[in-house]
């Protein structure tokens, strides 16, 4: 215990002089933490939320952002947005993807099939840059590719609370973090926008969401906040499509390992009992007979 206190005291001692330096360096506030249905050991995606998030992607994000690792078939996979295969087929067919060479060797676009992935909005990065002055990142794994510094001691607690939602919390905050005017004394380069949560604050992406921009038919509020949460949840699924299976297997593995450990513990006790039982056979000798170091 004394040692643990010493480590803690040392950590505090070290952190104290460093903390103010960091506060001045980044004026970026920590994104607020949200309650996500997929957080924690029993987490599951909210199907309605994933479908709404997909709608936001299709009607807003897709204009600029690719989803090149996601295949249409996965929209109907268990643990996902739970579209039917027929719905997923219909969605795929709405897209034009690059086809295979025909007999003449010409490559023509054709309607998408289940096996295809979402076609990118730009043929290459240069085309994107020419149009938007920046390359909109692919969104397939964006929810795991973004995050924010949790800082000591919160990161230690995250091990036990299983907080793995830095990415989605950041995305949700970012989408709502636009300010019409940068705060006094802050200038941002032209063709960029001020965003509270973006590192450096000058983001090339214009504010993508406005209230009532995407029509929801399930009664969910059509607000920027709801849109931001729904698209973030959808992107968590695209980044981690087997999240539900992972957490479910995790619980099975856990129960197995805990039972196994308990059995091994009692077996160990039993095996070692005989050794502990006869200490009287061990005769101590007087200090005069001790070996010298």
């Amino acid at each position, binding site marked *: 215990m004394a*040692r643990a206190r*010493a*480590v803690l005291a*040392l950590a505090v001692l*070290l952190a104290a002089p*460093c903390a103010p*330096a960091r506060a001045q360096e980044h004026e970026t506030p920590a994104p607020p933490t949200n309650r996500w249905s997929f957080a924690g*050991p029993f987490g599951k995606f909210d199907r309605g939320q994933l479908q709404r998030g997909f709608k936001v992607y299709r009607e807003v994000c897709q204009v600029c952002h690719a989803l090149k*690792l996601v*295949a249409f078939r996965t929209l109907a996979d268990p643990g996902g947005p739970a579209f039917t295969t027929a719905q997923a087929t219909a969605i795929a067919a709405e897209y034009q993807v690059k086809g295979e060479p025909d007999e003449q060797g010409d490559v023509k676009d054709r309607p998408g099939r289940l096996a295809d992935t979402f076609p990118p909005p730009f043929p290459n990065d240069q085309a994107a840059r020419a149009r938007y002055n920046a390359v909109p*990142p692919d969104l*397939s*794994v*964006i929810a*795991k*590719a973004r*995050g924010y510094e949790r800082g*000591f001691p919160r990161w230690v607690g*995250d*091990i036990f609370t*299983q*907080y*793995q939602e*830095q*990415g989605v919390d950041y995305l949700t905050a970012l989408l709502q973090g636009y300010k019409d005017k940068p705060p006094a004394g802050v200038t941002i380069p032209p063709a960029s926008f001020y965003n509270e949560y973006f*590192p450096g604050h000058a983001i090339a992406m214009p504010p993508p969401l406005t209230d009532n921009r995407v029509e929801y038919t399930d009664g969910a509020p059509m607000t920027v906040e709801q849109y931001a949460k729904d698209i973030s949840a959808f992107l968590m699924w695209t*980044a*981690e*499509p*087997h999240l539900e*299976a*992972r*957490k479910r*297997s*995790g*619980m099975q*593995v*856990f129960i197995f*390992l805990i039972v*196994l*450990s308990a059995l*091994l*513990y009692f*077996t*160990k006790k039993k*095996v*070692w009992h005989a*050794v502990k039982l006869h*200490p009287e*056979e*061990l005769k*101590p*000798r*007087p*200090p005069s*007979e*001790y*070996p*010298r*170091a």
Partner: protein
Amino acid sequence: MSGHPSYQPQSAFMRWMERRLPLGGLIYSSFVAYPTPRNLNYWWTFGGILAFMLGVQIVTGVVLAMHYTPHVDYAFDSVEQIMRDVNYGWLLRYLHANGASMFFLAAYIHLFRGMYYGSYKEPREVLWILGVILLLLMIMTGFMGYVLPWGQMSFWAATVITNLFSAIPLVGESIVTWLWGGFAVGNPTLNRFYSLHYLLPFVIAGVVGLHIWALHMVGQNNPAGVEPKTEQDTVAFTPYATIKDSFLLAVFCIMFAWFVFYIPNFLGHPDNYIPANPAVTPMHIVPEWYYLPFYAILRAIPNKLLGVMALGASILILAFLPWLDTSRVRSARYRPAYRQFFWAFVIVCIGLGWLGSKPPEGNYVLFARIFTAYYFAFFLVILPVLGKIERTKALPNSISESVLREGKPIGAPAPPPASAKV
């Protein structure tokens, strides 16, 4: 270690086999009848855990290699393919990625245990040096494995670490070009890292064989640090050590599973989910947590060449530990002053790890320098001097006696060594 019962084959086949290839006898004498000190505590179970982790890494790694494409244009996507389309691919990859962390965690505990109980001392010097070689191999293997997913951190870690060799005078630049197989980190670099990442674990397995061989030659050290003298001092490896090792291995696996199934990306960096881009440098390039103390030592020294030398020395110095520590008492249990310096050393290593994750500026650099100084002073000053002047506690006559008294010192402390100035 003679006197334990020898192998008696039970079946006709095993009797036939034993006269031709005495594999049964080898296994019996190594893992069944092998006498282990009866006072081993749970810190001694990490050797078995390490062997298990090596097995996990090799098995998951071989299957991952069946689905991975070592090419700069496909590596990142092929890893994502594993995560999405390979049956239980997510499990294989998360086991392998988090397995590396668990492997290092167990290795560091194993190493600190050896330091605390003086397991490197005569006659276990070669055993210890083999362990240092294993650590070095693990560091190389882990680094090259981290490059394979070809994310931003992969690419920039490869760039930073290979560039360290450019600090070597005259030939440095040529060596770096040779390592890269080109004029920048690129496809040839990724290919050779993949090849070596597949090769080195089997080298590790070979050295593990030597490590176990050396261990069985000299026998295990124990918390009392006195050699077993009588039959009473030891118990048979099976069932006593096997069951104890199995129990802690299962507990270790609970922690492993916690990371794999619930927080698989906790130990990783988000930037490694961004495909490698030579044109964009990440804000902070940080290695995996298990390299952070060495990274802090590297950056603590303002001169690049000296920094690289300090980095290398911080690992290689471990190999000289058997001769740097001049004390004849093995276990820190009977070395009260050493115990204090040892725990300070542990705190310094953890502190260096924390500092390695911070940008090299302001007070971070100052503390990194102080800690680096202590790291080397521990080996080069404290250990050689302390062994000569420390007043050690009385050693128990035997392991049995230390068990009987539950490790509490009995009687008066031993007289100080002749050279001590009081």
